[in-house]
């Protein structure tokens, strides 16, 4: 509407048109003034580090010699030499099996954790949306895992999962479900499961809360109309509830996906140095600060950024997400 009136204002005689453009200039100016602090902060805390990282990924920088970095082109990403024997040897990030292992680990972790969290979060949200005594208390209680800092909860779970003294092994042995103690976080077979369990435990509340917000936007009277229509509750869920909370669900899934694609802290604490759980972020950090391959780590970070950006764009494109909540 505002646009329309501005348009029509500019078609009326010149004198008034001039006033109209003055007004517009003023609005544009104040828009910039209001945006400036945010843009400045973003440039300082996000733009600059990102630019530096991308820059370093094209150099041979090392942690001890950042200022003496020389430009090496795409060498960190991919380079090859052809030996006299005719064999070509590829090197660089894109030829590194450790990198592709990390990419695969990250995608696997993201896919499984977000799916499980969405399903569980939906169930929890549906329960919390129902009327029952003490609902407020349960709603608050369920948020506790989300409120605990990741480092704390990861350490807590590390102790519970500990192979020698952990309570989990103790319980499972006592019940006779396992015959010997399992090194949950160290064993290649169970490390990823351990990480997934802790992540699901931690972030399901967040998912539930976002979905609950969506559920509360659904008008209650349509459920009564469905009861009058005699529609089975399961069908009501699939045909009414799910389509109506779809926008909220999509937003929740994007949030969680972006979060788990860059998973770092939980794995760093729970299962360090484990190839089965090494994600892109963990690999980048190792190269940046432990292996003295700063430029190589910067290349991994840049790739991580590109992958997350691509997946997000694709997801929003295919999901046709309307963040305003309309169909």
């Amino acid at each position: 509407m505002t646009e329309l009136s501005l348009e029509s204002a500019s078609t009326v005689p010149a004198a008034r048109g001039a006033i109209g453009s003055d007004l517009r200039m003023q609005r544009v100016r104040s828009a910039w003034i209001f945006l400036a602090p945010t843009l400045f902060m973003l440039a300082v805390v996000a733009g600059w580090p990102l630019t530096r990282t991308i820059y370093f990924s094209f150099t041979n920088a090392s942690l001890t010699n950042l200022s003496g970095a020389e430009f090496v082109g795409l060498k960190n990403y991919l380079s090859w030499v052809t030996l006299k024997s005719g064999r070509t040897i590829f090197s660089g990030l894109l030829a590194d099996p450790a990198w592709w292992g990390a990419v695969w680990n990250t995608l696997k972790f993201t896919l499984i954790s977000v799916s499980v969290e969405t399903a569980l979060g939906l169930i929890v949200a549906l329960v919390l949306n129902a009327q029952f005594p003490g609902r407020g208390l349960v709603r608050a209680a369920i948020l506790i895992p989300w409120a605990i800092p990741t480092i704390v909860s990861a350490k807590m779970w590390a102790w519970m999962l500990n192979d020698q003294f952990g309570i989990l092994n103790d319980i499972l042995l006592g019940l006779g479900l396992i015959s010997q103690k399992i090194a949950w976080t160290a064993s290649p077979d169970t490390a990823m499961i351990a990480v997934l369990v802790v992540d699901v435990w931690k972030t399901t509340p967040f998912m539930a809360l976002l979905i609950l917000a969506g559920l509360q936007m659904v008008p209650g009277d349509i459920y009564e109309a469905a009861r009058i229509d005699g529609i089975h509750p399961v069908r009501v869920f699939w045909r009414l509830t799910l389509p109506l909370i779809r926008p909220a669900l999509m937003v929740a899934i994007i949030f969680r996906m972006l979060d788990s694609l860059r998973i770092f802290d939980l794995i760093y604490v729970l299962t360090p140095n484990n190839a089965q759980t090494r994600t892109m972020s963990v690999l980048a950090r190792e190269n940046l600060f432990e292996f003295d391959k700063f430029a190589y780590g910067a290349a991994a970070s840049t790739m991580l950024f590109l992958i997350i950006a691509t997946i997000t764009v694709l997801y929003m494109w295919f999901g046709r997400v309307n963040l305003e909540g309309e169909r």
Partner: protein
Amino acid sequence: MAEIQLRDIRKSFGAYEVIKGVSMDIRAGEFMVFVGPSGCGKSTLLRLIAGLEEITSGTLSFDGRVVNQLTPPKRGIAMVFQSYALYPHMTVFENMAFGMQLAGRDKAQWKERVEAAAAMLQLTPYLQRLPRQLSGGQRQRVAIGRAIVRDPKVFLFDEPLSNLDAALRVATRLEIAKLHRSMHKTTMIYVTHDQVEAMTLADRICVLRDGLVEQIGTPLELYENPNSLFVAGFIGSPKMNFLSGDFSRPYDAHTIGIRAEHIAITPHEGHWAGTVVHSEILGSDSYVYLDVGSAEPLIVRENGVSGHQPGQRLQITPMEGCVHRFDMAGRAIAPAKIRGAA
């Protein structure tokens, strides 16, 4: 065709009793209107009949069969909600067909019924639209259509016109009256707080107050023979004039009530006299507000355009046999010798 019987129906929410023992018979094919001020329990009573709320005690039967424990579809009811309650992500057609697709009927049959209902309500051009692409009146017609398609034995309306503007309300009221005539075998129960809707639509009106039935009767019965001060004040616009003290003593009553059209302005010495405080001129008739010394000004209806000026003194006389008498508790004192309006 369903005859509905309510026997000592009670409903409590926690410790709070909303319906305090309601008994009534609703005849088959009748248009019954529940009317009352907000909070009187009329909507709750409708929801109890619909099966959306559980009855705390008492029995509800349809055609002699107790339905207390039956789900809404098993009772054979359909309901139109105040907020329309359309499924926002489904087209008009899907909204009307959703309940039927599952009832195990064959597709050709329900498709035909949806189309028939749409034609009846002039909704055919909108069948593929979403509810948010429709106006308020069209949405309400879709809600009515969804109910018609169910071919209910009992048709329930919960304040269906409250979200419409004044002109649309009158038009839709007319449509509902027509609907009742065309579905004369269907029992209809209609909840409203608007006594004009009640008067114009109802075969019989049930006035509710604080979870109890105040009076049940045809619109004219309630208008001419209200059995309490509450009904007398609720039915009719403008509100009935109430006088007490010195005014009511000669009538041997605690309070007397006279409708605005039952007071004559006399050229000679009248029963009472008052000063004009205000006149409302509606064109066809006028309402003159008179200060006669009672707590509230007395309203007198005059045909045509009133020429009285504020401050003018008028002589008035109540028409004979048109004075309603009430005792201390607000109950009507029989016989209420009411003759038809003059």
